[in-house]
C-alpha cells in the first residue's frame, strides 16, 4: 500500500501519534532529569546545558526530530478532534461513561485541552528559556574548567522567583502528567503493544509515569521559590 | 371419524422426483444425471433469494460463486441479523471424529426416527451425506468451533442421539455459522455478483406463464413497493412459529412471504407440525413479547426434576433428594434427560398439569446443575454454558450456579412449511424453498442441532445442483421483465391490501390481535390437541379474521418506516395460517412427533402413531373455498417403522 495513504489512514494516524508521543515522553523524562541537575548548584546545571550544546550535529538532529514530533503530534491530535466533531454532528442530550473497563477518565477526555495548553506553554517556554536572555545580555557563568558559558542557572532562579512562573509552571506540569497518564497507555495501545493480559499493567505503568514526571518537574520550581 | 379413502391415495400433483436407485446412491445418481448450466449461461440468469439466514445467505453466496446473478433480500437492517443467529446449541454431522460409532446411516436413521417417520427417506439421507461438507466449509470460512487441547474439533452429544456428533461454538453456534455465511455473502457482494437489499419485505410472488418470475417487495424505509423479476425465486424465509405470538422466534420472523406463495399456488405441507422446545425461560407476565430459549445442550449436564409433593414450597436447594422426582430419568431410563424435544416437552406439561409445577406461575420445572458442578467443577460448567447461565441470570435475576433454573416448553421451530420435491422446488415451478421454510427433512419432529445442518445443506450443497436442473430446462423466451402486466396486477393488489389496513382506523392494535391468535393456538393447537377444541378453534380463528378487518388500527402512513403496518400485514397472514394449522391437526388423527392428539395415545400416555392411515405428507392447496388436501404417501424402503421408544 501507498505509504502516505497508509500513514494518513485512521490506523496510521494513531500509530504516528503514538510513536511521536513516545518520542516526546522520552524527551520529557530526559528534560526532567536534566532539570534536577539544578539542585547540586550552578556548576552542574550550566555544565549539563553546555555539554548538550557541544554535542553539535547530534544535538541539532535530535532537536529537529523533536520539533517534527511536536508538530506531527499536534497536527494529528487536532485533526482527530476535528474528525470527532464531524463524526457526530448531532450530539447526545445525555451522555455518561459506562465506567470500567472504560479508560475515559478526566485525563483521557481532556487530551485535546491539555494538549493545546501544553503547545501554548511550549512556545512561551521556548521564548523564556531557549530564546531568552543569554551571554549577550550578561547571563554568563564560568565553569570550573574556565570555560565561559550561558548562565542558565541564574535565569532559572530569577524566573522561578516570580510567583506566576513558580505556580504556573507546576500547574502546567500537572496537566502534562495527565496528558501522559492517558497518552502513554494510548501510545502503547496505538502501537499494538497491548494484549488482554498486559493491558492492566501497562495502564498502571502509564499512571506511574505520569505522576513521576509531574512530580519531578514540580520539584525544582517549588524548591527555588521557597528555599533559594 | 377417519378420512375418506379417496383422500388417502397419492396425489398426482405431488411428484417427489426422488431418483431411483439405492438410498445411498440416489444423490450421486441425481448429480451424475442432472443437466448443467454452462458458465456463460449462468451469467444470464438472475436469481432472487428471499431471506439471508443460513439457507438464504449460503444459497446466495454459493450461487453467486458459481456465476449466477443474485439479488438477496432481508427484512432486517443487515443480512447478519437473520434469526438463524439465535441458534445456540450446535450443528450435527456424521464426521465420527470421536470414533464412537457414528456413520452417515446412523445420522440418517436418528433423524428419520426422531422425526417419527414422517419425512422422506431420500431427503434425509442426502442431508446426512452432505452434513460433513458443511463442517469443512464452515471451518474454511473461519468459524471458530470449539476445540480440544490437541487442536482438533470438539463434539458433544445432543437430544435424540447416542453418539457425540454435535459441533458447537460455545452457546452461539448459529451466530457463528450465520456470520460465516454472511461473510461468504459479503465476499460475493464485494465481487459485484450479489446485490444485497436489506430492509425489504417480500409481500407477494409474481407468477407468469405458470412459473415464478419475480416478486413484489416493500421497501421498509420508504414504504415503496418495488418489483423484481428473476428466473427463479428462492424462498429462505424461515418458519412460522410466531403464529403463537409467544415463541423463541425473533419479533420479525413471519410467514408472510411463504403465505403469499401459498396463495399463489404453492402447497403448504404439514402445518400442524410445530416443535415445542422443552428448555425455555418461563413466561413472567402479560407484557411478555417473546420467549427465550436455553439451549438443549443444557440437558447434557442438567437434571430435570419437580418436587414429589405438589405442596412442597421449600426453596429447591432445600428439597432433599428423596423428595424430588427426576421424572425423565424415571420414565426413560436409557435416554434420561436426553429424550427428544417433543417427549421432554410433553413430560413437563404433564407434571405441571398435574400440579407439580414450580415457581410463581407453577408453569415451570427445575433444571438442576448441582450434580454436574460437583462432578466436573464450576469451571467446566462455566466453560460449557457460561453465556447461557449469564443470559438466564440477566432475564430472571437468579444465579443458576447456586439455584436450579426454572424452565418451561415454548414454541421454537416449525417442521411444516411449503411442500417441496427432492429438488427443493415447490408446486409452483421456479419457486424453490429452503431451510425452515420448507417442510422437507424433519418429519413430525426435529432433532436438536439439525436445523443449522438443514439450512446450510440446502443452501451450500443442494440448491446449486437442483436449481441448475430447473434453469437448464427453461428457455430465454420464458424470461419476463418488471414491465410484464402481472407485476402491475400483483403490485396493485398488494398496495390495496396495505391501504385497506391503514384506512380502516379501527380500535385494536396488531399486537392485540396477534396475542389473541397466539393464545388460541397455544391452548388448542399446542402441545396437546383434540378434535373438539380444534373444531372450535377453526371457528374462533374465522371470527378473529373477520374482526381483524373490521377493527384493525394501524397508525401513520404507508410511505415511511412503519413497524405497526409491517406487523399488521404479518398478523393478518398468521391468522389465516392458524386456521390451516388447526385444520391440518384435525385431519391427522394420530399422534406423531410434535403433533399430539389426546385421543390417540397409548395407555402410558405416549404418542400413538397410525402408520396405516397417516404415513403421509398433507399438502394443502389454497382455493377460493376451503383449502384442498393433497397427499404424498411416504414409503419406507430402508428403515423399519418402529414405535419410537426412548425408554
Amino acid at each position, binding site marked *: 500500500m501507498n505509504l502516505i495513504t497508509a500513514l494518513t489512514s485512521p490506523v496510521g494516524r494513531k500509530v504516528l501519534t503514538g510513536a511521536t508521543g513516545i518520542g516526546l515522553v522520552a524527551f520529557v523524562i530526559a528534560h526532567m532529569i536534566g532539570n534536577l541537575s539544578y539542585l547540586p548548584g550552578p556548576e552542574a546545571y550550566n555544565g549539563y546545558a553546555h555539554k548538550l550544546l557541544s554535542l553539535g550535529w547530534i544535538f541539532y538532529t535530535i532537536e529537529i526530530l523533536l520539533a517534527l514530533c511536536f508538530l506531527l503530534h499536534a497536527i494529528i491530535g487536532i485533526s482527530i478532534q476535528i474528525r470527532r466533531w464531524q463524526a457526530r454532528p448531532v450530539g447526545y442530550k445525555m451522555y*455518561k461513561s459506562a465506567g470500567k473497563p472504560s479508560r475515559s477518565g478526566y485525563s483521557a477526555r481532556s487530551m485535546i485541552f491539555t494538549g493545546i495548553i501544553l503547545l501554548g506553554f511550549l512556545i512561551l517556554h521556548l521564548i523564556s528559556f531557549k530564546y531568552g536572555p543569554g551571554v549577550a545580555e550578561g547571563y554568563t557563568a564560568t565553569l570550573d574548567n574556565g570555560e565561559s558559558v550561558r548562565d542558565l542557572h541564574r535565569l532559572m532562579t530569577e524566573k522561578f522567583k516570580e510567583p506566576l512562573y513558580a505556580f504556573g509552571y507546576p500547574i502546567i506540569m500537572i496537566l502534562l502528567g495527565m496528558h501522559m497518564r492517558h497518552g502513554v497507555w494510548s501510545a502503547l495501545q496505538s502501537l499494538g503493544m497491548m494484549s488482554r493480559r498486559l493491558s492492566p499493567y501497562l495502564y498502571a505503568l502509564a499512571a506511574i509515569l505520569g505522576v513521576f514526571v509531574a512530580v519531578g518537574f514540580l520539584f525544582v520550581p517549588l524548591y527555588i521559590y521557597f528555599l533559594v | 371419524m377417519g378420512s375418506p379413502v379417496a383422500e388417502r391415495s397419492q396425489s398426482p400433483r405431488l411428484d417427489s422426483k426422488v431418483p431411483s436407485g439405492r438410498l445411498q446412491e440416489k444423490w450421486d445418481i441425481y448429480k451424475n444425471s442432472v443437466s448443467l448450466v454452462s458458465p456463460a449461461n449462468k451469467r444470464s440468469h438472475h436469481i432472487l433469494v428471499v431471506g439471508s439466514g443460513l439457507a438464504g445467505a449460503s444459497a446466495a453466496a454459493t450461487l453467486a460463486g458459481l456465476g449466477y446473478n443474485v439479488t438477496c433480500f432481508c427484512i432486517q437492517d*443487515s443480512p447478519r441479523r437473520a434469526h438463524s443467529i439465535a441458534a445456540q446449541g450446535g450443528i450435527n454431522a456424521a464426521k465420527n471424529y470421536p470414533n464412537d460409532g457414528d456413520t452417515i446411516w446412523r445420522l440418517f436413521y436418528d433423524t428419520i426416527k426422531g422425526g417419527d417417520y414422517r419425512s422422506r427417506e431420500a431427503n434425509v439421507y442426502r442431508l446426512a451425506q452432505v452434513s460433513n461438507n458443511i463442517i469443512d466449509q464452515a471451518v474454511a470460512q473461519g468459524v471458530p468451533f470449539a476445540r480440544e487441547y490437541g487442536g482438533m474439533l470438539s463434539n458433544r452429544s445432543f437430544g435424540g442421539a447416542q453418539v457425540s456428533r454435535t459441533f458447537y461454538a460455545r452457546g*452461539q453456534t448459529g451466530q457463528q455459522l450465520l456470520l460465516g455465511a454472511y461473510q461468504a455473502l459479503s*465476499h460475493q457482494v464485494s465481487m459485484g455478483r450479489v446485490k444485497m437489499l436489506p430492509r425489504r419485505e417480500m409481500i407477494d410472488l409474481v407468477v407468469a406463464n405458470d412459473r415464478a418470475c419475480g416478486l413484489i417487495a416493500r421497501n421498509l*424505509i420508504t414504504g415503496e413497493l418495488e418489483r423484481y423479476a428473476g428466473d427463479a425465486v428462492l424462498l429462505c424465509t424461515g418458519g412460522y412459529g410466531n403464529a403463537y405470538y409467544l415463541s423463541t422466534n425473533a419479533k420479525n420472523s413471519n410467514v408472510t412471504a411463504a403465505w403469499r406463495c401459498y396463495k399463489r399456488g404453492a402447497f403448504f405441507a404439514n402445518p400442524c407440525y410445530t416443535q415445542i422446545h422443552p428448555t425455555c425461560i418461563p413466561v413472567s407476565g402479560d407484557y411478555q413479547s417473546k420467549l427465550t430459549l436455553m439451549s438443549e445442550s443444557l440437558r447434557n449436564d442438567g437434571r430435570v426434576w419437580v418436587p414429589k409433593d405438589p405442596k412442597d414450597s421449600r426453596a429447591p436447594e432445600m428439597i432433599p433428594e428423596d423428595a424430588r422426582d427426576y421424572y425423565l430419568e424415571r420414565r426413560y431410563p436409557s435416554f434420561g434427560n436426553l429424550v427428544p424435544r417433543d417427549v421432554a416437552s410433553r413430560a413437563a406439561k404433564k407434571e405441571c398439569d398435574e400440579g407439580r409445577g414450580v415457581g410463581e406461575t407453577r408453569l415451570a420445572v427445575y433444571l438442576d446443575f448441582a450434580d454436574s458442578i460437583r462432578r466436573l467443577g464450576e469451571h467446566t460448567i462455566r466453560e460449557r454454558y457460561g453465556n447461557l447461565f449469564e443470559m438466564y441470570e440477566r432475564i430472571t435475576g437468579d444465579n443458576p450456579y447456586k439455584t436450579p433454573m426454572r424452565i418451561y416448553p415454548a414454541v421454537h421451530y416449525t417442521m411444516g412449511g411449503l411442500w417441496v420435491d427432492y429438488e427443493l422446488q415447490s408446486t409452483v415451478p421456479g419457486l424453490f424453498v429452503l431451510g425452515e421454510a420448507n417442510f422437507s427433512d424433519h418429519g413430525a419432529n426435529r432433532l436438536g442441532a439439525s436445523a443449522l445442518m438443514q439450512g446450510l445443506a440446502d443452501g451450500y450443497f443442494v440448491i446449486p445442483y437442483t436449481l441448475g436442473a430447473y434453469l437448464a430446462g427453461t428457455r430465454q423466451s420464458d424470461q419476463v421483465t418488471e414491465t410484464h402486466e402481472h407485476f402491475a396486477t400483483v403490485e396493485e393488489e398488494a398496495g390495496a391490501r396495505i391501504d385497506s389496513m391503514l384506512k380502516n382506523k379501527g380500535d385494536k392494535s396488531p399486537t392485540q390481535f396477534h396475542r389473541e391468535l397466539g393464545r388460541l393456538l397455544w391452548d388448542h393447537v399446542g402441545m396437546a390437541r383434540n378434535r373438539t377444541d380444534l373444531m372450535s378453534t377453526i371457528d374462533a380463528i374465522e371470527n378473529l379474521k373477520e374482526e381483524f378487518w373490521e377493527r384493525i388500527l394501524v397508525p401513520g402512513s404507508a410511505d415511511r418506516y412503519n413497524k405497526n403496518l409491517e406487523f399488521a400485514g404479518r398478523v393478518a397472514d398468521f391468522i389465516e395460517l392458524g386456521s390451516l394449522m388447526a385444520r391440518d391437526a384435525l385431519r391427522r388423527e394420530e399422534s406423531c412427533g410434535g403433533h399430539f392428539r389426546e385421543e390417540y395415545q397409548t395407555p402410558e400416555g405416549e404418542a400413538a402413531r397410525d402408520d396405516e392411515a397417516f404415513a403421509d405428507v398433507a399438502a394443502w392447496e389454497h382455493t377460493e373455498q376451503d383449502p384442498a388436501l393433497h397427499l404424498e404417501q411416504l414409503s419406507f424402503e430402508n428403515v423399519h417403522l418402529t414405535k419410537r421408544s426412548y425408554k
Partner: protein
Amino acid sequence: MIINLRVWRQEGPESPGKLVDYTVPEASEHMSFLELLDVLNEQLLADGEEPVEFDSDCREGICGSCGLMVAGIAHGPQKRTAVCQLHMRSFKDGDTITVEPFRARAFPVIRDLVVDRSAFDRIITAHGYVSVTTGSAPDANAIPIPKDTADEAMDYATCIGCGACVAACPNGSASLFTAAKIAHLGLLPQGEVESPQRVTAMVNQMDAEGFGDCSNYAECEAVCPKGISVAGIASMRRAYMKGLLSG
C-alpha cells in the same frame, strides 16, 4: 412501578428531532426495556398518537438489531447486556429515563430511534471474510488450531454488530467493530493468509464511512454487550503495520 421516559422523536433523516416526555404507569420490574417501550407504544396507539419506532428482532441479545442510548449509556446501565435484555429491575420506581438513538454521522437516523447501520455491512464487504468459495474446503480437522487460539478468535467473533461501540465512543469511531473481525479472522490459520489485504481494505472503508478516530478511550469495551476487548484494536494495528512493512 411508574417509569417516566424522555424519548427522542424525529420524523425523518432531515427533520429536526426533540425529546418528548411520556409516563408508563404500569411497568413491571420483570419487563425488559423494550417491553416497556412496547407497552408505551400500545398506550400511544390507544391515545391516537404515533408509536415510537425502534429496531429490535431476536430480543435475546444476539442479533444486534436493537441499540438505544438509555440514560446516557449505549444499551443502558447494565454491563454486558444488550438493551433487549436490560430488565426494569435495573431501575427504580419513579425514575426518569432518557432514550436517544445511537448517534454518528455514519449512522443517520431513519425515524425516532431507528438508525441506518449499513456502514457496518460495507466494512465487512470491504474484506471481512475469508475468500473461500463453496466446495473447496479441506477436511475440517486438517489444520489443528490450538484451543487457546480458537477460544480467543471466538471472543472476537462474538461481536453482534449492534453499533454500541460507535455510539458510546466520544469520537464516534468504529475501531472496535472493525478490529473484532480482523482479530477473529487473523487469529485463525484459514483467515491469516489474507490478513494484510483484509486489514487495509477494512480500515480504509471505515475511514470512508466517516467514522471518527480512535483515541483509546475504551468506552466501546465498556458498553459492548459481548465485552469485546480493545486488545483487538491493538492487534488490528499490529496487523496493519505488518502489512505496511511487508508491502
